[in-house]
């Protein structure tokens, strides 16, 4: 089943590459933040998937915390754009 894992990882990495390109290109702040948001979603998924590949149950905790905290960084910048902080 190794081939399957590699294919999945390849697809996810390709997605990451696109998001990074948008991050570098993105004309406005908001575009970049969208890319960051998307990247952090991708990272959560990747971390869980890698935990599965490594077969360590405890690694899931990391992605659990990532899922919660990743969005707060984005929320902060969004509130900044709004003039909220």
């Amino acid at each position, binding site marked *: 089943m190794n081939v399957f894992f590699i294919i999945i990882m390849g697809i*996810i990495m390709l*997605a990451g*590459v*696109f998001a990074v390109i948008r991050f570098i290109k993105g004309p406005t702040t908001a575009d970049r933040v969208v890319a960051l*948001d998307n990247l952090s979603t991708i990272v959560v*998924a990747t971390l*869980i998937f890698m935990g599965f590949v490594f077969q360590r*149950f405890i690694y899931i905790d990391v992605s659990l915390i990532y899922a919660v905290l990743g969005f707060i960084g984005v929320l902060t910048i969004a*509130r900044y*754009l709004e003039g909220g902080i």
Partner: protein
Amino acid sequence: METVLLYLGYFFVSLGAVFLFLGAFGIFRMPDFYTRLQAGTKSSTLGAMSLILGVGLMQPEWFFKTLIIIIFIAISNPISSHALARGAYKTHQKPLTDTIDAYEEVVKEDETKNEEE
């Protein structure tokens, strides 16, 4: 039963990966900010959720924690996109032409309300 779960898991994982890819591709290709946001959020959230669900199905003893993560993602991702859209709107980032901006009036109402408070 286990093989069924396993294959179901494979299916969901592949689906998730494809959706994640589509979301990122959408972010890359879409013409203006709001459409990008839409592509990024909807597609990626679905992708991540289904990928995690797939992993949970493949490893039934992990299912509880994966479920928690799915719930978190389902709550947090839309909120951040919403806040982001609002923030971008406040910085006067206009959508492409030919769109109807219904939000403008809501914002005005909100502001007057805030001032009254």
